[in-house]
């Protein structure tokens, strides 16, 4: 049998990503978001942004750990979901939570470390979203594109920190997301060490063969 074509995968991920937003909209319409719907919506959209971000940053580690290639096919979609969710999170905060008061938002960003951290993460996601197309990769050249997109690691860490700083007492959730992120970094690090060692060993054995000849 021919190898399964995965052309359904990206549409499935994007459709699945819309489900929590549909669910949120439905619950807002049904007044089922509780006494403080603005706060609930703000928290849920923000958490979704972090989940998408961590998920997109887990694609490479999954490939390293299990040899799967399908995660790499959905990485860009997940990253874009993270960006759009983070943007929506910001607009809920600015528009609904702060009633479009630009000055109080600016004051918050300057004065509140957790808001500054979250805002910085959103700003850093912007160039990544803009350069997410194949054309952008071609225009920048893969090496430059790749080093730009390493910013995603930083945004992931900032996202977790933003969540951690916001929580009042129970830090379980931000710590768990942080652990997923750290595990991913560790796997990347191990893979890199292994690669350099392999290259070195190959070079050494080549040198040994050459000298014995």
């Amino acid at each position: 049998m021919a190898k399964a074509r995965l052309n359904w995968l990206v549409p499935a991920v994007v459709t699945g990503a819309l489900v929590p937003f549909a669910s949120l909209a439905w619950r807002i319409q049904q007044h089922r978001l509780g006494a403080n719907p603005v706060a609930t919506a703000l928290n849920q959209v923000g958490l979704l942004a972090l989940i998408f971000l961590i998920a997109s940053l887990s694609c490479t580690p999954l490939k390293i750990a299990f040899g799967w290639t399908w995660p790499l096919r959905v990485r860009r979609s997940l990253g874009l979901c993270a960006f759009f969710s983070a943007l929506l999170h910001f607009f809920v905060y600015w528009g609904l939570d702060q009633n479009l008061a630009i000055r109080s938002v600016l004051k918050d960003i300057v004065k509140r470390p957790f808001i500054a951290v979250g805002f910085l993460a959103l700003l850093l996601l912007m160039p990544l979203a803009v350069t997410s197309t194949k054309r952008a990769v071609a225009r920048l050249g893969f090496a430059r594109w790749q080093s730009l997109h390493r910013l995603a690691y930083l945004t992931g860490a900032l996202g977790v920190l933003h969540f951690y700083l916001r929580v009042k007492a129970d830090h379980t959730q931000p710590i768990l997301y942080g652990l997923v992120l750290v595990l991913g970094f560790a796997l990347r690090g191990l893979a890199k060490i292994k690669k350099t060692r392999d290259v070195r060993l190959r070079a050494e054995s080549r040198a040994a063969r050459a000298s014995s000849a």
Partner: protein
Amino acid sequence: MRNSPRPPPSSEITAPELYARRREFIKAGALFVGTSAAFGTGLVTLSDWGGADPPSHPPPMPKTAPGAPKWEVTRRGRFGTSEPQSSYEDITTYNNYYELGLSKSAPAALGFRIKPRPWTVQIKGEVARERTLDIDTLIDWFGLEERVYRMRCVEAWSMVIPWLGFPLADLVKRLEPTSRARYLRFTTLFDPEQLPGQESRVLKWPYVEGLRIDEAMNPLSFLALGLYGAPLPGQNGAPLRLVVPWKYGFKGGKSLVEIRFQETEPETTWSHAAPSEYGFYANVNPEVDHPRWSQATERRIGDLSRRKTLPFNGYGEYVADLYRGMDLTRYF
């Protein structure tokens, strides 16, 4: 052969190369549906974690238990506000009571766990006589008064709640504190059976709150046993809780089992957990921000827009004198 069906038009005939791939289409379709459903469900679950929807049917107003004294409101209206009262549903489904769960909706689901009778309160420390008081004795002594107070949470939201109870000052006077009694220390029930959240160690249990004795003697300080004319539901701190409306809501210790009169300032739960964020006084103050968010404005539950927060939650004329000469940015 007049009766044979007409052959279908050629436009309706499936192209042979597509027909050959029919299994592939079905399989891809099934994988698409399954994957998107699984991914979507996972996302909804993760993003709801810890903050599930409030119960779709809010708890009904509790009836007074048979045999319990009748809930007669003896006095009404002192210090009352004419602002619209928050709905019973909002007051009883949007709660911070970590002993019953960390989300706003969890306490409403678990409030039934608290058994409000029999219930006693231990009076300890610097009083004429240490003793154990039955909660119904307190109702006999002081009667029940309705007080409609604003409640401002440190998380920058607020409600208007019609409490039922008696002034704390009445109890303090009756207990005859000694001259060494400078502070009151309020302790919440410690019983993981009734308060299952106490099995997690997010805070140091039991919950402890405190007041200076002159704050406790202020006529605004109130011990509530009910709201909206009925006994307090568990999630609101049944059967007895502190209400100090010029302070942030967390000062109002719930399900109280002990009041201790003492000479030294008690260490309170939140100031122990995060001393830079929550002080002993915790007076509502739009000028002193929480380190992580502004206290200048608040959202009244039910409103979409924010309103300005008032110093001492609008009760300055009654309480500002208590803090004359104190630097409230230091003693926050």
